């Protein structure tokens, strides 16, 4: 994304925020609505949380993460020829180096294709052979650290019947070195980041730091985007951190044609996830097994992808440079998302792409609007075509190979073409966006589908609750009190650690709740004093005690502590982490829920707290349980690390997996969602009312549910997030919080009125 486009999007965002009346303008004058613009921003940035997306845009706008692509190849060659005529040797050398990088990429393409041919029948257990050196030798390195465990491989399966999958591809990851892009035609598709990745892989990295390595790589490959390089390095390094039992986030871009071609990019948060999971000491297994559930947008089928690897050494994780995590595969996202966007909103392309968004502030730049848009597009296309011909023709002459440097060069040229049209920036921006869309379609034959894939450590929809800068641990002592222990006391110990950066303005708050079958009440607890700042690596611990009297019998004592702080060195304010603990006192009622399976006392306490949370809405709990709790709902505990938290089975069984019991609010969410399935199986009329109310049609499916996008799951999710939306962020939308009443007012009102009897949480 170039700075101009980022600035344009930011201007549009500001205009919509500052001019609420835009929403009421006639549609022909309004251009994109705010939700549409926000959707585009989140898609282009790859950030689901709009605040993060805006922050990323601001980085781009300030060129802190912007591409540092110099001239395209055609221009380089022209410059080179001019330099030769001028007998400017220094400039010739510089330009030759730049041109040579394109040749390297071309040779890498050949090599990659040869590797792919040799791996027609890959064996997942056999490490692939090291690739040959490229024809143009890069500077040697003293030490080569393999970026990827040699036995890592990716297995792609497609379900052909419930429970039966057929492997359609099994690719040694080392075949693509950084495992950053997998596919038979990855290079053939001229995706710049792929070219960069493969070129990078040839370097043999002695990674002192990501940034230094990125600098070195970029020195050798001046056309490469620094942000992409940094991101790829982070990804590659993170990939080498695999340890048995780890689970990863991945975002997946798969081309439909040919069917077994795919592109894989690790998510921005991967290094963080790896670190978190190391700390959480996930169960070790003999092999790393990662399962991604995903729903293809085109055929709406669930596919599973397994990534399996032998144990790999676990070196220390170096610090990740600022912004790297935010920059992963931005360009890839843009291209793939743009293709989706083009399919989804084809009418925007060319004609209504940001025609008058932010009219108040952008009118001068946009000018007459659509005519210039058309002009910009035409200019862009002409530039695209010209540059493309120039690039390939030159390469063909120079190196006997073709088709290199496509994406970056062509788009860059197209941008230049667009900028050249009167009307200036706005026109160019429209051209850029349109060309991205159409270019993506051209490159990928309109057959890309992009799926968010979920490799989670716990359950469905669980949030990225905690900041990576603040670690909060909390323990309750004891966790279980019998009636004979009353009166007594419970102590909660809280430990706060600054994980990476200095923390300032630290604020600790807690929410202590006493829950019983009779309802819930908040307790006032005075916290002891604590430091307001922490240096990197420093911690503080404090303890507070709650007196438990006889009237606490048969109840749950829940305590959630929230720590907020600023991270001045990262220019971040309001980072937040939470931790929770609960204590079971006596034998609290569980209404109609019957615990089956290996529940520990702590888990049972957490689940009981979830039941009590739901019971705050008597209408809902009675609908589930009956007036006298006569309808038993079995809660079955299964100690499995699935990609989801729970599962409902007819007629009345809810299975709770590990991910559904990460903390009390998560447990409430899981139980409410699965309870939603139980509810609707008994109240079909409410479901029909939900359909006919058009709630989902008007607001779309709630974004926190990442798997099956269907009306019945949306109904369950409508119920699932209702009791927890204030306290839980959701992985299904990239760790976003959902301001339920304003983001999904129709869902919220339907749930409030028809399910929860008017009770608000």
């Amino acid at each position, binding site marked *: 994304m170039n700075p101009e486009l980022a600035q344009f999007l930011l201007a549009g965002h500001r205009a919509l925020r500052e001019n609420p009346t835009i929403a009421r303008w006639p549609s022909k004058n309004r251009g994109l609505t705010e939700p549409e613009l926000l959707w585009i921003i989140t898609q282009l940035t790859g950030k689901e949380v709009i605040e993060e997306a805006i922050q990323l845009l601001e980085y781009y706008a300030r060129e802190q993460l912007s591409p540092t692509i110099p001239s395209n190849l055609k221009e380089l060659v022209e410059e080179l020829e001019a330099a030769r005529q001028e007998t400017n040797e220094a400039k010739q050398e510089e330009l030759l180096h730049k041109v040579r990088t394109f040749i390297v990429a071309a040779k890498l393409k050949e090599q990659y294709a040869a590797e792919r041919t040799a791996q027609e029948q890959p064996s997942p257990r056999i490490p692939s052979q090291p690739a040959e050196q490229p024809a143009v030798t890069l500077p040697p390195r003293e030490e080569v650290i393999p970026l990827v465990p040699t036995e890592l491989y990716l297995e792609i399966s497609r379900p052909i019947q419930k429970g039966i999958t057929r492997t359609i591809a099994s690719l040694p990851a080392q075949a693509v070195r950084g495992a950053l892009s997998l596919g038979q035609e990855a290079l053939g598709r001229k995706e710049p980041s792929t070219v960069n990745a493969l070129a990078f892989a040839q370097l043999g990295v002695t990674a002192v730091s990501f940034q230094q390595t990125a600098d070195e790589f970029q020195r050798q490959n001046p056309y490469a985007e620094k942000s992409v390089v940094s991101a790829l390095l982070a990804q590659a390094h993170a990939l080498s951190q695999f340890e048995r039992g780890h689970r990863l986030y991945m975002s997946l871009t798969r081309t439909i044609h040919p069917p077994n071609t795919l592109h894989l990019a690790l998510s921005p948060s991967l290094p963080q996830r790896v670190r978190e999971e190391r700390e959480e000491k996930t169960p070790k297994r003999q092999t790393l097994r990662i399962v991604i559930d995903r729903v293809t947008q085109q055929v709406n089928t669930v596919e599973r992808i397994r990534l399996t690897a032998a144990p790999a050494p676990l070196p220390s994780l170096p610090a990740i440079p600022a912004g790297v995590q935010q920059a992963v595969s931005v360009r890839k996202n843009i291209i793939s998302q743009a293709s989706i966007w083009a399919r989804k909103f084809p009418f925007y392309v060319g004609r209504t792409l940001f025609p008058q968004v932010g009219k108040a502030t952008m009118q001068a730049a946009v000018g007459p609007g659509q005519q210039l848009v058309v002009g910009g597009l035409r200019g862009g296309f002409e530039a695209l075509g010209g540059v493309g011909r120039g690039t390939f023709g030159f390469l063909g002459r120079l190196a006997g190979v073709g088709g290199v440097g496509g994406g970056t060069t062509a788009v860059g040229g197209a941008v230049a073409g667009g900028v050249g049209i009167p009307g200036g920036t706005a026109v160019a921006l429209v051209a850029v966006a349109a060309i991205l869309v159409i270019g993506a379609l051209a490159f990928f034959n309109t057959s890309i589908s992009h799926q968010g894939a979920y490799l989670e450590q716990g359950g*469905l929809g669980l949030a990225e609750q905690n900041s990576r800068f603040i670690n909060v641990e909390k323990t309750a002592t004891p966790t279980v009190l019998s009636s004979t222990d009353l009166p007594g006391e419970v102590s909660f110990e809280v430990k706060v650690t600054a994980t990476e950066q200095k923390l300032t303005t630290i604020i600790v708050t807690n929410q202590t709740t006493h829950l019983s079958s009779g309802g819930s009440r908040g307790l006032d607890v005075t916290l002891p004093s604590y430091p307001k700042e922490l240096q990197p690596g420093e911690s503080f611990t404090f303890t507070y005690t709650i007196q438990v009297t006889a009237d606490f019998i048969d109840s749950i004592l829940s305590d959630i502590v929230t720590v907020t702080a600023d991270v001045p060195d990262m220019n971040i304010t309001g980072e937040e982490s939470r931790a929770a603990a609960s204590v079971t006192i006596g034998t609290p009622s569980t209404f109609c829920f019957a615990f089956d399976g290996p529940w520990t006392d702590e888990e049972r306490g957490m689940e009981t707290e979830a039941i009590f949370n739901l019971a705050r809405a008597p209408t809902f709990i009675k609908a589930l349980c009956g007036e006298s709790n006569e309808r038993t709902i079995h809660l079955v505990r299964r100690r499995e690390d699935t990609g989801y*938290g729970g599962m*409902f089975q007819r007629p009345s069984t809810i299975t709770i997996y590990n991910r559904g019991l990460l903390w009390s609010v998560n447990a409430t969410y899981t139980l409410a969602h699965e309870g939603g399935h139980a509810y609707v*199986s008994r109240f079909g009329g409410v479901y029909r009312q939900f359909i006919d109310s058009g709630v989902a049609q008007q607001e779309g499916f709630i974004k926190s549910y990442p798997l099956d996008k269907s009306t*019945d799951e949306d*109904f369950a999710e409508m119920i699932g997030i209702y009791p927890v939306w204030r306290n839980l962020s959701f992985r299904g939308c990239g760790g976003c919080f959902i301001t339920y009443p304003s983001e999904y007012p129709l869902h919220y009102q339907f749930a409030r009125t028809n399910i929860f009897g008017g009770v608000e949480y």
Partner: protein
Amino acid sequence: MGVITSFFKKHWLFIVLAALAFALLGIFLFAQERGGEVAPSPTPISQSPLWNGITPGQTSQEEVTQKLGQPTQTRTENSSTVFLYPSESKIRNNEVFFTGTTASLIKEQVTSSGVTLSSYLDTYGAPDALLYGPHATAGFTLHVFSSRGVAALANPTDGTVLEVWYFTPMGFEQFQELWGQGFSTSYPQKF
């Protein structure tokens, strides 16, 4: 007065026949109107059910447009042309599928709480099979009375009916092959 009496005396037979014809026409129109509301069709076995004057397997596309008017939308699904007509639901449309130029399947969207699954079970007995598809985890199962040419997408717990399908009576296997895409005989897992 005498002229009128004379007229009636002269043409009494014609007048009676005309009145009878009007009465029959009124009854026919009334019955046809009610036909769209009363879900279970009392069609005997092996005869195609009738919906709003449309008989699957018999009524042509032209006759459908004569009876129901022009569709609000059309689409193609598995090589069938589908005409969409408004229903009581603002969201869901009634759908008429055509095989070639003949109506072959009608999906009626039900909104009335007066139509329940029990009325179908009372009329047709036990379904030939149950199929699970969209809305399955919301408790809605397609109760297929394939030999009657009727299927009801309904929640067996509270009897809510979402859709009623009308088609040419056939065996279940044939129904599954023809119209059962997207449905399965096994209950899907939902998370």
